[in-house]
């Protein structure tokens, strides 16, 4: 799929808001500024250092402004500088990071700011009302499919095929919430025990509320720069060693392919995106070569499907590995030390937050949830009906 870029690039600054349900104190542009300024300060830069901006904004009905890039241009002080607005649903933040990486590695620009903001807590109809409208209006929207029902269909299939049960998904959710409690920027910071997860309301069986991501508002931003720029900066950097995306066909029932299993729950597009990013980064054995993973897991029952697609475990065995503690601190790879999407989900920037969390681990700036000795990390984005995926591998070394 994708090849090595002609020159390296790194994340040299990054920041996220402290996420919560609503941000009544600011409007969308102020939220964008909150993220952008914080990331630039982290990089030791100002807006004058930025050559171009990539804006990560996902479905417009969630934040209430059509084509928000039009309004954002003034707030970000572009004054004729290049702007690219990317929108791939939940994968938007990763796609935006990828577009910014292209702009820098192309040699066209030295420093690119990628920024986005979400205020989906404002949506009076609820996010699932909006997200129901992403489905085919003639057949599927009426069912009614939404992202929760989408996950439930896949989860039931996984349970039937590989024997996982609700207790497993409750354990995963509990682990993520415990991680989120250590992340001061996470939206949900109160730990929950597996029994509490199983007592939470069923949204669409077997998915329960405490297995599911919240609706979060806040901003995220990262500064991506060339190697020449990194030499002038004092702070740590996270080199982007590989970045790729893959989009599958829309109808879930069409996603039946032979490898590795003839099942849509194999998440073929995620597997391909991950493999392409690994190939660029020289990752041949993810569990031994990666220290941290920040995959985009919006419901705890997606974890086994996604980790298997990313080659963290053989097909059908990720739950067993989870029971052994493989994804916890001290295990094979620490998965979602930030608490992940189950604790924080500002859709426009959720995938950008994954990229930033991976970068901050590699830069040693993950504060209370820093994984000791983290040098190589990966992150993913997921959008559409588990259809659009992006993956990135970051390292503290441009070629280790």
């Amino acid at each position, binding site marked *: *799929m*994708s090849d*090595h*870029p*002609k020159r390296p690039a790194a994340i040299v600054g990054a920041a996220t808001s402290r996420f919560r349900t609503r941000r009544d104190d600011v*409007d969308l*542009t102020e939220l964008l500024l909150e993220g952008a300024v914080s990331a630039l300060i982290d990089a030791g830069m100002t807006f004058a250092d930025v050559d171009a901006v990539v804006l990560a904004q*996902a*479905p*417009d*009905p969630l934040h*209430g*402004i*059509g*084509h928000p*890039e*039009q*309004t954002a*241009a*003034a707030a970000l002080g*572009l*004054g*004729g*500088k*290049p*702007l*690219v*607005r*990317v*929108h*791939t*649903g939940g994968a938007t933040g990763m*796609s935006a990071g*990828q*577009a910014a990486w*292209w*702009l820098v*590695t*192309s*040699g*066209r620009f030295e420093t690119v700011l990628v920024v986005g903001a979400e205020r989906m807590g404002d949506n009076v109809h609820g996010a699932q009302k909006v997200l129901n*409208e*992403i489905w*085919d209006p003639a057949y599927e929207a009426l069912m009614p499919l939404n992202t929760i029902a989408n996950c439930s269909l896949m989860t039931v299939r996984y349970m039937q095929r590989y024997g996982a049960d609700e207790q497993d998904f409750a354990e995963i959710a509990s682990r993520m919430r415990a991680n989120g409690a250590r992340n001061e920027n996470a939206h949900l910071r109160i730990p929950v025990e597996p029994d509490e997860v199983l007592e939470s309301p069923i949204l669409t069986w077997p998915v329960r509320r405490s297995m599911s991501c919240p609706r979060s508002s806040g901003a995220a931003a990262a500064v991506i720069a060339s190697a020449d720029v990194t030499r002038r900066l004092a702070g740590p950097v996270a080199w982007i060693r590989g970045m*790729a*995306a*893959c*989009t*599958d*066909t*829309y109808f879930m029932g069409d996603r039946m392919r032979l490898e590795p299993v003839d099942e849509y729950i194999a998440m*073929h*597009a995620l597997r*391909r*995106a991950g493999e*392409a990013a690994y190939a660029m980064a020289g990752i041949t054995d993810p569990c031994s070569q990666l220290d941290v993973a920040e995959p985009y897991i919006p419901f705890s029952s997606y974890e086994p499907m996604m980790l298997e697609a990313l080659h963290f475990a053989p097909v059908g065995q990720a739950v067993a590995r989870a029971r052994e503690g493989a994804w916890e601190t001290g295990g094979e790879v620490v998965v979602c030390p930030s608490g992940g999407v189950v604790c924080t989900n500002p859709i426009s920037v959720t995938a950008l937050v994954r990229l930033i969390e991976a970068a901050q681990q590699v830069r040693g700036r993950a504060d209370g949830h820093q994984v000791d000795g983290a040098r190589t990390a990966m992150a993913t984005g997921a*959008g*559409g*009906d588990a259809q*659009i995926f992006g993956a990135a591998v970051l390292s503290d070394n441009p070629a280790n």
Partner: protein
Amino acid sequence: MPYIAGVAVHRPQPTEEPSLEELAFAAASAALADAGLDREDIDGICLGASDQLDARAISSMHLAGPSGGCLRDEVKVADDGSVAFAAAVSRIEAGVSHRVLVVTWHQPGASDEMAALGVNPEPIYARPAGLHPWAAEAMVVQDFMRAAGLTVDDVDAWVAQAGCTGAPPGEWLAYPLRRSHLPPASRAAVALVLTAAPAAVGVRGLAWGADAAGVVDRGGVLGSLPGIATMAYRQAGLSSPAEVPVETTDRSAVRRAVAAVGLGLVDIAKAHQALEGGQLARLNSSGGLWQSNPVFAAGPECIARATQHVRRGASKAVAHASYGFAGQGNLVTVLGQVKSV
């Protein structure tokens, strides 16, 4: 910089009722055929689409596949179709992709454009004041007309003289913009195949940028267009843009004059005279948006037209896309012949 190996503009017959998916599929297939490639050869997809205009919450979910994005590295750019072209150029320049398909479309029946654009202004101050994007466009047009010494009668005369077939004359959209000053929207999908390997047409210059949505915050009636054009020309070694074919998105009758000045084809004091005297025959010789106006895909259609100019013998051609809130965004690309292919 990359090359343009294939272009296609698919316009369905008036009697046909294709879905957006069928539109995109037809354009992508035709561009690939024009390039002598098939879908397996493509390693990147850049879609240019507006959810509002498509009347879908994430339109690329349904349209990535028909556009060639099934199990491909795909991204959707939402500023304008022309910015998807810029993204495609950058990923080839980066070396991560080698053959990228750009696909963009417009289906007027998918949504009510006036209503769809009405949610774009900032909601606290601008929207309650009635600042619709076309009202903002009228403010820009009025500023330019004042600076260029143009009157509404002049613009009416251009529209009548050119035989433009928009709305009936008379009705104001927002003074000094009449509905008849706007080219009607049309159905089409546009696809471009960009390659790292040489083809007959090369991308020789590319620059783009966005000004503030607020008309008074743009530092002049032309905003950053002159600087963007100069940058693209410099990359391409183009010193006399008035001597090559230029295709621009004349989203209103006055926008052709704005582009003529902003792109450095004529001084603002002489714009009126030059346009009436036929001295700008190379500007939109294709007929511009009055010939075809697939709104979100109009910029890429200009690039497709510029490609055809070069294929027919022009040494260079310029394509300009104006987009966003009252033309706040501008993209200028210079295409040139590749002799060795």
